[in-house]
């Protein structure tokens, strides 16, 4: 492990939420790169490989986060990805990634609710980065 700060890519189309998440993740001691859409996220991934990525689900399309996640994993199979969204609670859709069927098509490692507390987020990130 190098001593350099790990780089986290954040993609969310809500500029306010993106700013807040950026602050939160920076305060946890990471470097941050942000993008505001699936398309922008893809072009960032073309030029650099982050250590971890957090994607919003509904951006250009209702499933942009999944698609971005799929493409990111194709490029960097070992990149840990978190999908964070407000979708679950109100739609009743639950995508937990613990059953093999879902894991096969949702290429993310973790699915998180927005509004997560910094300490929870920190724990999840550390787990994924094996810190």
């Amino acid at each position, binding site marked *: 492990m190098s001593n350099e700060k790990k780089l986290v890519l954040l993609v969310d189309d809500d500029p306010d939420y993106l700013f807040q998440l950026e602050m939160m993740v920076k305060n946890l001691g990471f470097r941050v790169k942000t993008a505001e*859409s699936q398309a922008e996220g893809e072009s960032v991934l073309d030029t650099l490989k982050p250590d971890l990525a957090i994607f919003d689900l509904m951006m250009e399309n209702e499933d942009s986060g999944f698609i971005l996640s799929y493409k990111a994993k194709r490029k960097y199979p070992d990149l840990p990805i978190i999908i964070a969204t*407000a979708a679950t609670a109100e739609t009743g859709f639950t995508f937990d990634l613990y059953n093999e069927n879902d894991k096969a098509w949702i290429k993310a490692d973790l699915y998180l609710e927005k*509004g997560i507390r910094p300490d929870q987020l920190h724990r999840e990130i550390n787990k994924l980065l094996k810190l």
Partner: protein
Amino acid sequence: MATLNVLVVDDEPGIRSGINRILSNYSVGYPFMDEDFDFHLIDAETGEIAIDILNSQAVDVVLLDNKLPGMDGIEVLEYINKQQIDVAVMMITSFASLDLAIKATRNGAYNFMPKPFTPQELRASIENVAKHLFLKRMTRKMQEEGKQIRFQFLSVLSHELKSPLNAVEGYLKMIQERQFGDKVEEYDKMIERSLARLKGMRNLIMDLLDLTKIESGKKQRKLRETDLSEVAKMAIDTMEPYSIQRAVKVKLITDGNTSLLADPDEMEIIFNNLVSNAVKYNRDGGKVEVKLQGQATSVVIRVTDTGIGMSKEDLETIFQDFVRIKSNKTRDITGSGLGLTIMKKMVDQYNGHIEVESEPDKGSIFTVTLPRL
């Protein structure tokens, strides 16, 4: 060609083979159906066998004799009804009995056919049953699709409502924790953004109420002779504080008789949407031209802007619920994504139509044609 499975329940072999003969080369078609129906026949000589078949394979139509050796036809019908099996039942009766007819109808028999019947009569009855079945299934399918669309609408809506709540909550927490120190000024931007998000949420709720009123048909329309030039002027005035701020010049040109029979409130919604979009999605210092042309059978409204325009792909989606074109150029523009949906529904109510031409970075032209009622 779709095939309907017809279960013939009769203890007389002659009837079963007769029906078989009549229907085996027969097909039914209607102009409103995509495809014709033909018939595949299954035999049962008792009610008990019929129930076994109903439980083990797909059946669309049951031709059911009432007088059977074991359980009788009415009992089979009761079973079908209780199990809510999706079939159309036609009772075959050798004698007309009012009592039986009432019982059978109460249990959901679709039709009766007296025995003996001619091939012609059987074909006519089966044609009716097929039509009934088709319509029933179509209705159900459409209801299910309606539910699906409603569900999608609700899930996107809740997302749109929850996002600003998350944003505001996030800012409040940052302020509460004094994340940027003790100076109030450090938080000005966050307070400003929170207020903007709340305003956006309020607009969304207002738009939603408009939309609900249109869809439930509860919005009472008060039609009267309305001069669209006046409505246009009002919409331009309403937007004025914002257009001055953006230094966008809005020009109104009217030509001919621009009055028509309409609900002024609804016209206002149409014009507010057209004008506010033309100003909002303009560049600073841009222009908007609102042109009204009274023609013999319609009034044509053409709103031209010098704004950011849209790509072909964007144009295809703009009338859908909650669709907002997201790009660097639109990120600071607030909107519910329902404005054009509402406007389109309004225009539809007047049997009018909307055309959009647009070129990225050049501008857009919205043309609304409203026929004189």
